């Protein structure tokens, strides 16, 4: 206890009288190291978390009921929907009709029929605009024009990836349309029928499954494809806040939904590559962070070692007059912890006071997601602990090396 108190006393005086610029520089290095440890991983994971978030919000929901692989649609959809409507945990749901089709733009201006048509393959989705918006907030993702209303039988909303302007990629297997904008006439061919629509809006969510769709009213699509039985292809369900989506899944299974449909939670319904990428990026972030941790440890080691070696004589004197080695070592450990605590403290302020809210308000625009900064409190404090521990060791080891030297040799500088 005495050694601890005296160590703290010595550390305090040493820090107080140290060179201010050097101290500031060391603290700055610690701050950068902390941010490197948390932010690099946070951005990498946040990049994928952005994908996950938007997949959930704009497409899958909390529970995703979809068509079994060997079927064309969910049989007995009306019964399943009535079960969903009866469940107390459901906040909203949207039932979508989908079918592969084709969309052609600027066909009225086409003069040379030897050239390829200005067309794109797309999934044609029939939706109830109100239910869809309550579930996936699709109207908020409209980047041009307007969202559909229940009376828009002659209008479509196009996914941005169907247009060259937003997705300038073209190959033999994949084509986009050019020259199509709000108000343009487009021809949609689905289920052997073709109908002309006017483009009302363009939607961009950065979810391929959504952005490569042509949205129209469910009634319109049903008529086009002759689906009179009201069997849909997918249903996204949002659970009420605080409700475990598993309640909904279990209730649906209990009511026999799995006999005709695939019922998945968001995690189950999310594409596997997204989960794999998330894990890979987390590992990558941890590797980059670990390198930062090693660099910080080396920095502290050098700082403390240089400090201790230049004060070797005084360390010898202190030992000579009876100050315990432990107290001197503790002084250096406190000193390194001082750098770590201040560096981490400033880092935490920057992280939660600026970076997280700033990136939340201005997400990093990646091509496939709006990246957020993932800085969960638990994970952050684990890194705080790791950095403090590394600093403590990096402070203790050089102090121990110098303090262990023969007292008289230290005093005499030999």
């Amino acid at each position, binding site marked *: 206890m005495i050694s601890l108190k005296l160590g703290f006393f010595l550390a305090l005086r040493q820090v107080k*009288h*140290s060179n201010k610029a050097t101290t500031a520089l060391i603290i700055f290095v610690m701050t950068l190291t902390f941010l490197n440890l948390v932010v690099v991983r946070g951005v990498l994971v946040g990049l994928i978390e952005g994908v996950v978030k938007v997949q959930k919000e704009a497409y899958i929901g909390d529970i995703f009921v979809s068509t079994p692989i060997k079927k064309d649609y969910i049989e007995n959809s009306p019964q399943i929907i009535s079960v969903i409507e009866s469940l107390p945990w459901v906040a909203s749901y949207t039932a979508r009709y989908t079918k592969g089709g084709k969309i052609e733009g600027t066909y009225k201006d086409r003069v040379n029929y030897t050239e390829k048509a200005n067309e794109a393959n797309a999934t044609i989705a029939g939706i109830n605009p109100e239910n869809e918006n309550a579930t996936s907030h699709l109207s908020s993702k409209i980047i041009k024009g307007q969202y559909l209303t229940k009376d828009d039988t002659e209008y479509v909303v196009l996914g941005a990836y169907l247009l060259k302007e937003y997705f300038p990629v073209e190959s033999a297997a994949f084509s986009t349309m050019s020259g199509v904008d709000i108000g343009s006439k487009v021809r949609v061919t689905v289920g052997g029928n073709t109908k002309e629509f006017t483009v009302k809006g363009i939607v961009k969510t950065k979810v391929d499954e959504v952005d490569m769709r042509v949205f129209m009213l469910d009634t319109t699509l049903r008529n086009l494809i002759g689906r009179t039985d009201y069997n849909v292809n997918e249903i996204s369900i949002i659970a009420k806040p605080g409700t475990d989506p598993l309640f909904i899944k279990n209730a649906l299974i209990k009511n026999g939904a799995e006999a005709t449909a695939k019922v998945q939670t968001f995690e189950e319904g999310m594409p596997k590559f997204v989960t794999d990428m998330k894990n890979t990026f987390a590992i990558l972030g941890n590797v980059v962070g670990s390198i930062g941790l090693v660099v910080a440890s080396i920095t502290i080691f050098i700082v403390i070692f240089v400090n201790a070696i230049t004060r070797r*004589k005084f360390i010898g*004197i202190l030992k000579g*007059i009876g*100050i315990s080695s432990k107290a001197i070592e503790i002084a250096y450990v406190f000193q390194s912890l001082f750098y770590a605590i201040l560096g981490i403290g400033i880092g935490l302020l920057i992280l939660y006071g600026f970076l997280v809210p700033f990136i939340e308000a201005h997400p990093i625009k990646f091509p496939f997601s709006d990246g957020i900064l993932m800085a969960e409190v638990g994970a952050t404090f684990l890194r705080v602990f790791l950095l403090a521990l590394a600093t403590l060791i990096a402070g203790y080891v050089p102090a121990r090396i110098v303090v262990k030297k023969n007292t*008289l040799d230290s005093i005499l500088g030999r």
Partner: protein
Amino acid sequence: MEIIEVKNLKKSFKTGDKELVVLNDISFSIEKGDFFSITGRSGSGKSTMLYQLGLLDHPNSGDIIIDGVNVTSLDHDGRTDFRLRELGYVFQDYALVPDLSAIENAAIPLLMQGLPKTEAYQKAENALQKIGMGERLHNLPNQLSGGEQQRVSIARAIAHDPKIIFADEPTANLDSETADTVMKAFLELNSHGQTIIMVTHEPEYAILTKRAIKLGDGKILADGAPDKIIHL
């Protein structure tokens, strides 16, 4: 009454294959309240002797008994604790901790002894006032002159009422006027019964002590009143 008894003390250093014997089978004793100087030419083993007596180094053989305790048999922690509680040191180059003020430097052995801060600071202040540094309590070493620093060093050595003060060439780095002040401080302390053992190569200061030994060739060449042996 003897405060130090040295029996058959031997200290040698290895330089390559050769063994250099610095102290060879030396025996002597020092009375309590003595002001004892160790003199001799450069390389005669004066400082080596002081380091053995002051428990800063370990002899090859022989015994050192301080106030009834055979300190040569103490382990590392025991020696550290003995130095802390029973001995005081004054070094040639003052050896103050640069980050600590005068009072903090003087209080540090007391804090290590576990005294409450207020008590430690009070004792440190008393020690500083005793050697005329009461006005410079809160100055850092770099704000003090050489003589002042050495007096702070003496205050640190006496603050915890040690049985013996060891002084290694305490006047070597000082001008004659300042050195006189430091010696006056030692004489004053000794007049109140403080045992002091001082290494010096300066005859004018050795002569102020009560007893001196002159070392040479690993042996005690002379032992007695300083004025008798100093010019031998």
